Structures are given as C-alpha cells and as structure tokens.
C-alpha cells in the first residue's frame, strides 16, 4: 500500500515537472496553428495560414538557409578539430597535455557575449567585415570544447590496443586514424556533430554581433519579435524547435543504441 502510494506520488511529481518543462513549448506549437491575429487564448483553429506566411517570407527563408550553412560548416570544423585533438591527447599525450586540455575547454567558461565581443574587436582591427564566415568562426569556437570533450571522453585503453596492433602490423598513422580510430569512434563523432549543429542552430548573440545582412534564423526571429507577439513568430519558432529537437533526438538515440550494444 505504501509502495503504491509512493509510486503514485512519484508519478504525479514527475508529471508536474514535465508539465513545467514542456508548458512553453506546447503553447508555442499550439498557437502556431492559431487562426486569429494573436497567439493567445482563445484558440481558434487549427489553421496553417501562419506557416504559409512564414514559408513565403523571403527574409525568413534566407535566414533559414544561412542558419543551415553556419550550423553544418561550424560543426564540421569543430568536430574535425576536436577529434584530431582528442585522438592526439589520448594516444600521444605530451607533457603539457593538461595545459592543452585547459586551453581547449576554456571557451566553455566564457560567456558567448564576451567571445563575440572579443571577435568583434579583432575583426574590426584587421578590417574583416561582419559576415557569415565571422559567425561560423565564432560558432566553431563555442562548439570545439563540446566536440573535444565528447570524443575525448570516449577514447578508452582498449581502443589504444587496437591502434597499437594496427601499428605493429605496419599501418601508418593516417591509415590507423582512417581505418581504426574513426570507425570505432563513429557514434561519439556523430553525437558531437549533431549537438554542435543544434548549438550553432540556436545561437543568438554571436550571430547578432558578427553578421550584418546575412542574418541567421534566431536573429531574424528576434527582429520579428520587435513587432510584438504574432502567430507567424510561433510558426517560425516551431520550425526552429522541430529541427533542433529531431537533431538532438537522433544524436541521443544513436548514443543510447551504441551504449546498449556495448553491454
């Protein structure tokens, strides 16, 4: 009896917490299907008119394209740099390995705003204009610690033996990386890439400060917000949310399956 009561109260508590976590999302998605002009109750719908508006808004679509470009390229760069560094530190740790790890992880302890501010000052000085490339560089910096940490944490000693065996059998460094290390680390590499892509996809302040005309989607949504609440923002927000949610879900499932397979 006590056990049953415990289970019920645990269930109620968890439901309440999940309700708190998902409340804003549910409201966002629900009122993206609103028929009227305002995304507040009463709900009249469902209607797809605001999605049609959003998809036929050329500025919004251009921003979506920019976001995809920046997310894919900055996560590719961060995953590549992070993998190489993690591999090197795991296999051939130099004496100053601690300092290297510290430097690579340091960007995580600094606000994006300050990273953006620093880059803005540098780009101003060297005369580089605000652009999508500048945003991509900023996003690579914030993604690199994440990619490095995820991949580094998955390098174990048993992998080292496989690398050593390949070396002993005459494989060169590049062959070992390409044919042993990358295939073994594929789930971690994939998860790192997906999480980095969502981080970049959502990032706002670096994108705002380092771009001028070719803005990304979060910046565009922020600009739309200045006109006040609108179901069009809900629709655009739902698109952003759905894309990043599915990317994270794919990464998480890949990691879970991989861990499950290892046991």
């Amino acid at each position: 009896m006590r056990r049953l009561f415990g289970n019920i109260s645990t269930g109620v508590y968890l439901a309440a917490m999940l309700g708190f976590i998902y409340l804003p999302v549910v409201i966002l998605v629900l009122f993206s299907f609103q028929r009227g002009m305002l995304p507040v109750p009463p709900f009249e719908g469902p209607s797809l008119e605001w999605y049609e508006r959003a998809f036929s808004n050329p500025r919004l679509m251009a921003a979506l394209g920019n976001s995809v470009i920046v997310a894919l390229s900055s996560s590719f760069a961060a995953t590549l740099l992070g993998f190489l560094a993690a591999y090197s530190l795991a296999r051939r740790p130099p004496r100053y390995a601690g300092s290297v790890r510290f430097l690579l992880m340091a960007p995580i302890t600094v606000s994006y705003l300050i990273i953006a501010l620093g880059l803005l000052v540098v780009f101003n000085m060297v005369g580089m204009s605000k652009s999508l490339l500048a945003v991509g560089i900023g996003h690579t910096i914030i993604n690199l610690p994440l990619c490095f940490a995820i991949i580094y944490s998955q390098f174990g000693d048993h992998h080292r033996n496989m690398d050593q065996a390949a070396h002993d059998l005459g494989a060169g460094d590049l062959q070992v990386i390409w044919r042993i290390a990358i295939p073994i680390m594929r789930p971690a590499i994939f998860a790192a890439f997906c999480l980095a892509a969502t981080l970049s996809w959502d990032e706002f302040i670096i994108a705002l400060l380092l771009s001028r005309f070719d803005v990304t989607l979060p910046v565009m949504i922020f600009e739309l917000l200045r006109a006040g609440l609108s179901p069009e923002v809900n629709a655009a927000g739902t698109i952003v949310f759905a894309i990043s949610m599915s990317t994270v879900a794919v990464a998480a499932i890949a990691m879970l399956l991989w861990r499950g397979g290892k046991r």
Partner: protein
Amino acid sequence: MIASQMLDPHRPANGPAGPGVRDLAPGAGWPLVRWLTWPAVIFTALFFAAPLILMICVSFWQRTTGGLEADWSLINYAKFFEKDFLVQALVNSVEVTVLVTAISVLVAYPLAYVLAYRVAGTLQRILLLVTVLPFWTAYVVRSYSWLLVISEGGILNQLLMGMGVIDQPLEIAYTRAATVLGFVHFFTMLLTLTIFANLVQINPSYRKAASDLGASGFGVFWRITLPLSMPGIAVGAFLTFVITIGDYITPQILGGNAEVLMPQAIMLQIGRAANFPMAAVMGTLLMLIVTAVYLAAAKHLKMERL
C-alpha cells in the same frame, strides 16, 4: 612489441634501462599523431585567447574619433564606477544570477533524485532524455514561448481569472520575476542532468551501510548522498552561473526594459554609444566575476568529465 621495434628505427631493441622503459609507453613512436592537437590549439589561440586578451587591452585604451588609441589608463574603469546606471546593471546581474542559480539547484535536485532512485531501467532513460531534451533546443524561441504564457492576455492570466483566483491580470511579463522564471526553466534541465549523472555514480553500498548503522532516511540523504553529489551540483551551478550572467536574450525578451542587466548594458555600449572600451570594461568585469566563482568552486569542477 617486437614487430613495432623492427618497424621503428628510433626504438632500440636493447636500449639502456631508462629510455627503454619510456619507449614501452603505449603510443610511442607515432610520428604524426603528436602534431594533431595543433590545429585545435592554434584555432583556439587565434580566435579565442587572442581576442579575449585584446578585449582586456581595449578596456585600458581610449576611444578617439578615428577608432581606438593604445593610451593605457584605468580611466574607463573609473568612468564605469562613476555611472550609477552601469553599476546598477552589475548589481542587478549578480543578484539575478545568484537567485537563478540557487532556485535552479533547489528545483532540479529533487527531480534528479527521483529520476536516479525512484525509477529504473528503460523508463529511467526515457524520462531523463525527455527531461533534458528541450535544453538543447530553441534558445530565442524558448524565452518567447514563456512570454506567451505569462503575458497580460496569456494563458496563465486567463486561466487564473477564469478560475476566479484573480480579478486583474498579473503583471509578470517584463519584470525581474519573468527573467528569473525563464532562466530557472532553462537551467533546471541542465542541473538535473549533472546532478543525475553524479547520483547514479554513488556506490549504493554507502547508503545501505549508513542506514544499517542506524541513520534515518533523512540522515542518509544529509550525511551521505548530498555531500557525495556536491560535484554534480558544482558543475551544473557553475555552468548556470556563467551562462546566466552573460545572457542577453532572456532578460531582453522577458525582462524588457524595466531593469537593465550587464549584457543589455554591454549591448547598449556596442550599439547606440559605439563605445568599445566601455563594453570591454564591462566584459572584463564579467570575466573577473566568473573567474572568482571558478576559483572558489575549482576543487569540485572537472569540466572535461562532464
């Protein structure tokens, strides 16, 4: 080993004891591998460390009509502390950040505890995933979504008025409470993850031993579980602190212009005032605060183990 000795001319087959032992270290003799940290190190140095150092330098420089002049002085810092609204922004930021960090820990801990000890197996994994999934998603959109919930005609006010709890809509939107709510919602997910990861690593025999020795349920929690879960709290709270104190979008969307936090004040300096040295002063001050907090929490923090 013998094969690798033959393939690697630098590795002596019968070398003297000292270097010979070092050569047995796994990974020795891979010529290319040791260089592979350099791309990441150079990239981070060039686009993270150098800009940061330059920003600190700029905070000591002067603004001229043509741009910046490397005329070192503390005058920008003096100007910052002379201006009440800038100092107030700093105070507001620290207050909001401490409040957010404390509330988030208090909200997240029970959730992490229940997930770690009251559910198990596949259900546990699914619930954890579902709990932290929105953390990774839609940063700007999330603040906006809370605005929908708490705005004057929003669902919360309509619900409360419909139930007759209140006559007038609550003015939550565009206040500090709204900013704190948005942040707490966001960081509950992060802290749940770090605390959960810590709780499931605690050896269950410690708790069993304590209760066998006569500790009450609360005694076990207070003297065993809580102290052992401090690292998880520390990592999550530190990240919460860092992100909150530097975040622009949440106070801008949810807090409005009722009060200005540091990031908003920095944006005003960059934008309207085009005053880079003052923005750099404020950025440097934020970094000093974060560094102080990091040093205070350093013994609990193992960032790369996250």
